[in-house]
């Protein structure tokens, strides 16, 4: 899951990115509203975390502009003000959730995951295909009840594939959802992760098929 973080305080942004990455998100950090408007719909973000106190454009205006442009990505606003008005205005202008600073990073992650689940229409935090289940809250994968040891990227790839079972996901799309701008990704990095996944899901897990020229697909049986 890739998340766009728009926060002007460099230290907070750095900390939040590290914290979210530890929780399995791929994070892109931006420090102003202008850049956020430029990039928000350029990449397949699962959610956007938007600070309202931006140096150039008011966060609420960024929010309004994104929604007006038809960006439907779940947006969680961060505010340093505790005025009810701010929250109400934010939600009314198209935000999906808000958090007031200071916040618990774990709560932010949970809320982001919930937002993403809701936007995908899957209320169950656990994705299941046959004997394979992926608990998106604890970020653990089990096959026939046994925990499968997967690395962060492998989890991200599997989560994306399991999010759309039986559908072909183009390679570029998959890469865009799993890696952020800063990840130095070689063209065959994705193949490496998929290869490892196939190995680790043997023998009873669902197969991950390569559709030549198109992308990858996880089989439903």
């Amino acid at each position: 899951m890739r998340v766009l973080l728009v926060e002007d305080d460099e230290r907070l942004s750095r900390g939040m990115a590290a914290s979210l990455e530890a929780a399995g998100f791929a994070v892109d950090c931006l420090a102003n509203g202008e850049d956020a408007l430029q990039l928000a719909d350029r990449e397949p973000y699962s959610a956007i975390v938007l600070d309202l106190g931006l140096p150039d454009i008011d966060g609420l205006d960024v929010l309004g502009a994104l929604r007006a442009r038809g960006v439907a990505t779940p947006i969680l606003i961060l505010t340093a003000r505790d005025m009810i008005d701010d929250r109400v205005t934010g939600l009314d202008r198209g935000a999906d959730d808000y958090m007031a600073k200071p916040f618990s990073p774990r709560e932010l992650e949970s809320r982001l995951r919930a937002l993403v689940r809701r936007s995908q229409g899957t209320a169950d935090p656990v994705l299941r295909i046959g004997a394979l289940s992926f608990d998106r809250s604890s970020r653990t994968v089990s096959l026939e009840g046994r925990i499968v040891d997967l690395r962060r990227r492998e989890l991200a790839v599997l989560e994306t594939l399991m999010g759309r079972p039986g559908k072909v996901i183009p390679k570029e799309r998959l890469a865009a959802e799993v890696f952020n701008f800063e990840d130095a990704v070689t063209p065959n990095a994705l193949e490496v992760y998929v290869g490892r996944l196939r190995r680790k899901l043997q023998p009873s897990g669902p197969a991950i098929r390569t559709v030549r020229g198109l992308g990858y697909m996880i089989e439903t049986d």
Partner: protein
Amino acid sequence: MRRLPPSLRFRLTAAVLLPLTALVLFFGIITTLVARNNEADTVDRVLIGSVRTLSLAYNSPASDRERLVPLAVHLLKRRARPVVHYSVWRGDRLIAGDAALRPPADYSPVGDGTIDRHPPTTFTNAYRRNELVRGYLDPADAREVTQAAYLRDGTLHGKPARIAMEIRRAHGDDRLIAIQIADYVDDRLAHERAFLHQVLMIGLTALVVTGLLFWLAIRWGLRPLATLTGQVEAARRAASPSVRLDADEATPTEIRPFVAAFNGLMARLERASESLRQFTSNASHQMRTPLAVARVQLDVLERYGPQSRQGQAALTDIPHALDTLEQLLRQLIALARSEDQGTISVQPFDLADIAAGVTGERAAQASADRVISYEKEGEGPVMAMGQPTLAAELIGNLLDNAIRYSRPGGMVSVRLTNGADGPLIEIDDDGPGIPEQEREKVWDRFYRIRGRGQPPGTGLGLPIARALAQRMGAEIELADGRTGRGLCVTVRFLRAD
């Protein structure tokens, strides 16, 4: 004893009723005294008139006397105010009436030739102004009278009585006869008491009616106040913090100034509470970001461990966040202290000494790549009015600001001159400066100039400096730096005379 709370109605009623009661009493007493004099006068006239009538009856010829005296006594006893007690003495022998009504001790039964031993009673206000001879209209009637009718106070049957007496020689008789008529004084007193009672009852009724009317009038008169109370009460219950009293055309002119003053006060309180709300909101806003940094970075530290790249960043970011919080707290306290409404004792002090001291101290603390210079015009002390510690805080504050905003390798200069308008201190830096259009706004608490490359700050430094300056009566101004870039802050102190 528990005192009742003072009531306006009670006060007003008392203020009117007390003098009114005194007035009623005063007129009651006057009326009673007048009535009493009148009454005494009337009784006296009746007694004198009666004694003369009886005396004349005895002066008639013996043949007529037999008929006239009983007739006179009969008539006197049937008056509206009956004359009951009489006695007639011939020499020292009672010939008619009550023996208990004896003549006085100075009465001489045979006559010693003395005429009018006692002055005859006269009544001053005889409105017909008839010429009377010793009380008689006809001088012939007075001829045989040796003592014309007079009044004395005596006793009859042991009770005080008013006694009228006339002594004459009766027709055809050479012996003197003394005619006396008496009336008990207590009759008169009873009459007077009844009159006094009447007067008091009328007065009391007037008081009660007045009091009642007044009470009602005050209640009616104070109704606009009750309306105002109702408005305030309604406002208190309503959620809206804004309270204004309405003055319509029914509002009395006496209450309008109160309404205006009340509304003015409410407006001021609202402004104050709004600015306080703004202040606390801003202060909490300022604290939230560093707190969020600390929390998030602690989480990072927990997840990645202190040896990791992320952990190392967290280990520098957390102290920084704490520094920011600490600075904010310090400045909030400084601001609260600088706005302390308490009066300070302004005294002459050597500004040169303070400025040089603070500059030296800051120069020692500042990093080596900042050049801090101090320059002073002329020799000797520069005396200013103010408070040395506040002045040191003010200069230190401005100097810190200048150092923070100056560029690495840049220059901060402090210049002290003794200008015509008072001692002047200028603090000059070569930092980004403050654009003309922002120079008013930077005095607002928490105001920060937006833009990249601004060093972190709380937006409280300049407001604190201004508050400190104002407490000493000093003026503070912002201008372009003297080199054409950066900022020059000028503080003009009051001259010490």
